[in-house]
């Protein structure tokens, strides 16, 4: 009966040049290329791999947002997930949506779907929060294996090798658990055209946060978004002595 929930987030594509909106309320998203968050891709790949190794039976891809996120869910289906869930969030709720709301949704879904594992990307490349996995585990009171670079299932426990500042840490946690994927966990497969075709037949269920008893009210208000300061030109010097003199002159040493 093992089922895995995988979260996939639709974000601005990593290769796009980000521009801040003139009113500084956020970044320009209209007409901009979007794709699945790279860490979510790694999470999907891991889940599908586990299914291929027969550790789990079903992989469910979940995304929260407006209708466009179904594209992202379909990509997950094309990579091998069995079915999808689209939690509809739009307008102001979508703009204000953050890890707190998402983790509440995932916690509710994990219970509803009786999942053994929730696998998420470690963070999203748009907000870089790195909170959703941790919050989800806390709300569920489940163990968490975050920044995973290796995952091994052994009966009812999971061995997770984690990437930490000092190196690698190996932990053993019991299921059900929340895992978040780090960069070196795996290399996501390319969706093949035949798989994309097959994915068209897979089901995507629709629901709203209210159906899960989740309130989307945000406790965070974005005041202003600025571009990073433009990099100033450097100054070239001829010798090391000149360099030292300059550094002394502007008070750096």
């Amino acid at each position, binding site marked *: 009966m093992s089922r895995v929930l995988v979260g996939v987030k639709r974000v601005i594509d990593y290769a796009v040049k980000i521009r801040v909106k003139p009113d500084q309320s956020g970044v320009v998203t209209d*007409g901009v290329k979007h*794709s699945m968050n790279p860490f979510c891709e790694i999470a999907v790949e891991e889940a599908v791999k586990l299914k291929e190794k027969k550790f789990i039976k079903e992989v469910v891809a979940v995304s929260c947002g407006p209708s466009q996120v179904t*594209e992202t869910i*379909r*990509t997950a289906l*094309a990579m091998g997930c069995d079915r999808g869930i689209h939690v509809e969030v739009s307008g102001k709720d979508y703009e204000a949506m953050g890890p707190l709301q998402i983790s509440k949704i995932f916690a509710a879904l994990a219970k509803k779907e009786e999942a053994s594992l929730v696998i998420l990307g470690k963070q999203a490349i748009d907000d870089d929060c790195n909170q959703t996995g941790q919050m989800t585990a806390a709300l569920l009171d489940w163990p968490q294996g975050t920044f995973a670079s290796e995952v091994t299932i052994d009966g009812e426990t999971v061995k997770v090798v984690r990437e930490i500042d000092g190196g690698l840490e190996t932990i053993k946690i019991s299921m059900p658990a929340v895992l978040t994927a780090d960069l070196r966990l795996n290399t996501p497969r*390319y*969706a*093949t*055209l*035949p798989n*994309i*075709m097959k*994915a*068209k037949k897979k089901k995507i269920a629709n629901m709203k946060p209210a159906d899960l008893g989740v309130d989307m009210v945000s406790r965070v208000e974005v005041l202003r978004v600025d571009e990073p300061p433009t990099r100033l030109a450097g100054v070239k010097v001829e010798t090391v002595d000149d360099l030292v003199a300059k550094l002394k002159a502007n008070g750096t040493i």
Partner: protein
Amino acid sequence: MLLGKVSLTPALCTALRISPAFSGIQKQIGAAATQNARLYASSQAAEAVLDKQAVGTTTATKAATAKKAQSVESQSFAVNMFKGQINPSQVFPFPSVMNEEQTQFLQELVPPVSKFFEEVNDPAKNDSLEKVEDSTMESLKEMGAFGLQVPQDLGGVGLTNTQYARLVEIVGQHDLGVGITLGAHQSIGFKGILLVGSPAQKEKYLPKLATGETLAAFCLTEPASGSDAASIKTLATLSPCGKHYILNGGKIWISNGGLAEIFTVFAKMPMMDEKTGQMKDKITAFIVERSFGGVTHGPPEKKMGIKASNTAEVYFENVPVPIENVLGEVGGGFKVAMAILNNGRFGMAAALSGTMKGVITQAVDHAANRVQFGSKIHTYGAIQEKLARMTMLQYVTESMAYMISGNMDSGSKDYHIEAAISKIFASTDILWLFPVVCIQGSGVERVMRDLRIFRIFEGTNDILRLFVALNGFQDAGKHLKSLQKALKNPLGNAGLLAGEITKRAKRTAGLSTGLTLQGSVHPELSHSGNLAVKAIEHFGVTVEDMLLKHGKNILHEQFVLKRVADSAIDLYAMVVVLSRASRSLSQGHASAQHEKILCETWCIEAYDRIMKNVKDLKSSSTTQVFKNMKAISAAVVENGGIVAPHPLGF
């Protein structure tokens, strides 16, 4: 306005610009075409193309369908423009043929394919290895790239022409060598099975071809038969037991020749001509498996460009081909060949529009960053002109590709002139794209080498120009013939004749004949629309003039045919961008104003070129120039080289 009494007076004939002796001309063109069948593949192609409605239908309905095809008015814009008429149905509005499901599906396919070509495929490696890397080939097969247009129930992706074009564009943008490997396999290699294969043949061969388990190759060209495809010598003779054809011959320049398992082979067979009672060589198409035995191939040709694509000679020695493997009809092979080439042609324009896009991005990057004489070079007029020209060319090419694929998907069977135009256009002017680009090490030099072949294979551009012109003349000739018929019964055809007289009188007086694109073209583009209309009118008149002047000998007037074809290409290009820019304006795209400028600029220059061609064709000094060129050519041929002695005397 009813005509009172219309009699066939000389005045009337002059007004209608028909010589009383015209009656035989159209017939003669047709006859000459058949007589000179081996002169140009194009003329047979024209014949084949007219009958091509019959390709793929059962024998019983063939005759009926062929007759019907010829009596129905053509909806093709190109066909009508040769008659000086405008049929906007296939060009306005710009076709938008995909339903929601197809659009969504395509949108899902583009990112993985793009990603693959950006991250996995290594064009430089493929080029230096002179083959597509094995791992890349495997991934392409897994990806489903080898069966894009095979129906889903036979294991393919089942794409429409428009969807196929969009993916082929991505391939063109990144690696033309891979593009040709894929195209030689599915765009021509096994396309015949898709178009005219029997259900049994489709079921037997398509599934493995779709997954790339077997590769396909198109085998038409021989050492002595390139453009003159009808002259091939590979022979197929029925075996004594009557169950096999025995194939003997050799093919040259075959893409995928060294890799393929399944070959579409064209061979001649002596057949009894029912009409004359004589034996005649007719071509038949066969599906040949390498496993039949007797099929060998030569080493890969060392080429300047598309090095990753395998090109080899293929030899057939007493190859036994079961009679079930005849593709299409016995003796109908030429039509099958033309149908295959015709059907795949739009893919070239699509691929090349992608190539252009890629090159332009590099050119822009270079121009925007390179500093010379104290300024970024894109601030200089010379560079600005180059960048602008590149952009316009890409816009036209892309517009043509998707207009044609859209027409094909809408069920049009009448797109052969437009397809030929798009192939010529995409492969000729692409050279404009190169001067400004930094050539070293950016992969652009490889692209430049890869592009040269596109003017040559799948119908050389020279032949295709003749094809465009002669096809156009044939239809225009028929129109004149029908007028001739009408003249025999003027009272019964009073309306038609009155219309024609009025039209011609107006044209002679330089007045507009009411031909208009108003209502089709966006109001902001009306000036350019008028240029197109004027060009069509002058073009139509020129076509008639040439027909009347040369009659059946127009077949031999290649200087004329080339200029007519070039004008036709420019005209179609004008209309295509008018359509696309109009749509952008109507839909309020952010880029609409930019596209408007592209369109207007293109139309101004295209109009000038067309008018120059029209003027040249009327002028006696040009006729003299043609004569002179003929003489120059004869002299150097006779001399085996340059004739004029060295200025230094030795």
